[in-house]
């Protein structure tokens, strides 16, 4: 197929971020906005989160995920957004050109701007290097949700949940909804990852919780039979179970990026962006959880609104390629710093805050230094998987072409 399609803004991924961005772009008066979604329907992860609460801030009341996703799709369509599902973006080319695949074949799409909104997924069992056999019945929470809420299927009856993030607790609810009972929740870290107030939840539902578990091992031939581990007292525990839910440890769905001309940040696992949300090719913007693991849907929705304003401005008054400095963590306890680049321009609409995460509990002064100058400083007391927001580095204090290094003074 030699045809090249055209549009003004092409949005890759029709989850919360892509739909919110498209809708907000239309509200900004941007014409010809197309959302490309590879799934059979747009809506993204909330489509299979059959629980509350979604949409409180953005839609004014609490929805279950699937209803929320439908509402976002409705709003986008009402705003004049063209949503094309069943379209897989297979390649990102320089200057806002995309390779697409549909059931009818391959085609290219040339846009003025592209926004990447492909979201996050959970780490797999393999990526965690777990010991044991590899039977059927080891699933991520996302896969479990899709089975339960989108396909009415139950993969097991009494699974063990690995991990203790928010999504791990939501897995308990998914199990209950699908007629399953979680047999236990196992966390390798010394304590539960979510904030303490969530913790009684597991007890409430009668799910035993084990923290500080080591030497995890999956047993079973065709199907899962048990999971064993060494508990915090050094004793081996063996829990009979018919399934394992691998939850959390999110990572951006960055497959397209790795095969493209865009730079990827090892810290976030997502694309390198500047304070305008632009990737290393300025015709590409990025928003939503592809930026970093992981925020709530409400956060992604709001962030997409800001991205829409930046994109609209850039379409009418392009920033283009400008000099920039790089910004990076030089502290092993600081997992990532977003944005990873500071464009040396005072164009309007820049982010006012930076986002960071730590990889271990830390308290101290976060400082950003450039050419010996402190360009930002803030006290933090944080733990893994907690959002850290700081003011943006001050552009006026940045030396020309001096990279910014961020660390924690304990």
């Amino acid at each position, binding site marked *: 197929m030699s045809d090249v399609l055209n549009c003004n803004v092409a949005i890759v991924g029709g989850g919360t971020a892509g739909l919110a961005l498209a809708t907000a772009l239309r509200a900004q008066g941007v014409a010809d906005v197309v959302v490309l979604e590879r799934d059979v329907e747009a809506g993204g992860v909330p489509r299979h989160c059959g629980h509350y609460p979604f949409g409180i801030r953005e839609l004014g009341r609490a929805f279950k995920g699937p209803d929320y996703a439908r509402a976002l799709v409705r709003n986008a369509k009402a705003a004049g957004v063209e949503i094309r599902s069943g379209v897989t973006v297979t390649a990102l080319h320089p200057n806002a050109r995309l390779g697409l695949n549909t059931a009818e074949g391959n085609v290219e799409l040339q846009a003025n701007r592209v926004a990447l909104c492909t979201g996050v997924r959970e780490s797999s069992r393999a*990526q965690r290097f777990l010991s044991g056999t590899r039977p059927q019945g080891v699933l991520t929470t996302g*896969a479990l949700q899709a089975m339960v809420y989108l*396909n009415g*299927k139950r993969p097991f009856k009494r699974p063990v949940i690995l991990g203790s993030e928010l999504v791990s607790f939501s897995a308990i609810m998914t199990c209950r909804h699908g007629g399953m009972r979680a047999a236990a929740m196992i966390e390798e870290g010394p304590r539960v990852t979510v904030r303490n107030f969530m913790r009684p939840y597991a007890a409430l539902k009668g799910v035993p919780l084990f923290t500080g578990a080591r030497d995890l091992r999956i047993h079973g031939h065709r*199907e899962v039979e048990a999971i064993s581990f060494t508990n915090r007292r050094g004793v081996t525990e063996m829990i009979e179970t018919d399934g394992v839910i691998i939850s959390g440890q999110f990572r951006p769905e960055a497959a397209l990026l790795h095969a493209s001309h865009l730079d990827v940040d090892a810290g976030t696992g997502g694309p390198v962006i500047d304070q305008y949300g632009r990737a290393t090719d300025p015709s590409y913007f990025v928003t939503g959880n592809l930026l970093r693991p992981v925020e709530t849907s409400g956060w992604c929705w709001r962030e997409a609104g800001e991205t829409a304003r930046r994109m609209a401005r850039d379409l009418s008054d392009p920033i283009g390629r400008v000099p920039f400095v790089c910004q990076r963590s030089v502290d092993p306890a600081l997992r990532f710093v977003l944005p990873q680049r500071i464009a040396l321009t005072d164009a309007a609409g820049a982010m006012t805050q930076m986002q960071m995460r730590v990889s271990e509990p830390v308290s101290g002064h976060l400082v950003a230094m450039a050419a010996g100058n402190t360009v930002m400083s803030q006290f933090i007391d944080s733990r893994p998987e907690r959002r850290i927001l700081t003011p943006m580095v001050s552009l006026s204090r940045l030396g020309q072409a001096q990279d910014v290094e961020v660390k924690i003074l304990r």
Partner: protein
Amino acid sequence: MSKSLDHDPIFDVAIIGAGVVGCAMARRFTLDGAKVVVLEKAAEVLDGASKANSAILHTGFDAPPGSVEQSCVAAGYAEYLDIRDGLGLPVLKTGAMVLAWNDEQLASLPALVEKAHQNGVLDVELRSREALLEAEPALSPNLKGGFVVPGEYVIDPWATAHAYILQAIANGAVLRRNAEVLGGVFEDGIWDLEVTSGAVRAKQVINCAGLYGDVTDARLLGQAGFTIKPRKGQFVVFDKPASELAGAVLLPVPTKTTKGVVIFRTIFGNLAVGPTAEEQESRTEATTETASLHDLRAKGIEMLPALAQFEVTTVYAGLRPATEHQDYQISQDVARNYVSVSGIRSTGLSAALGIARHVAAMNVGVAFDGGPIKNPIIPSADRLSNYHGRDWEDAGHGGIICHCELVTKREILAALNGPMAPTTLQGLKRRTRVTMGRCQGFYCTGALSSLTQGYLDPPIGEDDE
């Protein structure tokens, strides 16, 4: 033991085991005109040693000269390249390098090159450290030297064996799955086999039971001349972009017992590091071990420092059917029309076609009615190579189900409704690659559970009433 009924067919050949060796054997004997039955105890073919290997098409450059293994690998290699176009089987012409990382290894290279030449692999040549680093710039500068083996290639471990058995089936062979051979008697020139799925009669038996070669010999002959000593190999598979770090298969200097940890591109587009070599008792448990996986990753990074930046896609482990002997254990019991094809340890994928020819040649005097098939049917193989055309690139695929590996609805349904349809998720994975990419089923398990409803046992999920 159930007595077979008189109207049951008497097969010319019963092949026990549908690993890659049994599959190639079934193809050979079917094409030679035999009425073949293949008895596989598992629900799917390739459930034993052939399930998980490095998928390198070896030249046999490092096999012991004069061994059965060496001649079978050489013959298998040649025939693969001969028939693969017709069958639609892919080859990734990577070539290999044997790399020395210390002075001792460096000193051992000339003898290895000499051995390769003795084995008839004449294009094996020593290379300077500089030449190797120029060809493979991602290699660690700690490299001392090495030699190249231009003919070592990468192939599809599953589509290959599937193509062999599917061609056998298309030309009249019968495959019985869930059919374990428990015992048998040889009387009046006929084997009467006791099989879990019902008795089978055949004039000749070929034992290709892999990890159960000794057990099967004992069941049928009363004894085995060797003992299987399973040797596990674990692998770490890196994300596709890592495949740019190594063009050639990177082999270490081999030791007596193992080819050592290899870095190789897979035909599916990834870069893999492995295998380990660990002796164990169990013939079924191919576990992965956290510590070994970390160790493999570290070994990979030692050789290719840039590998540190890449994500892991998956890990796996396989079991080699090794014995106390170094060579293959292929032997014939002429009086009982029985051949044992065992101990096909670490080169069986490459050698399978050669082994089949070797066994066919033992059969002098046995003629099959009608003789060799004149114009055999040649079915086309599953198209799973990342480096060749895939189904998703052709219009009318019905939508992509597995987004990481770009597996289409059309090809899943074709596998589920075609010959030798998979009945387990494992089997479906080997036929289509569903859930085998980066996300390992995060995105597609839900859709797959509906699409495969009624086809798989166990199902991916039960209906939730």
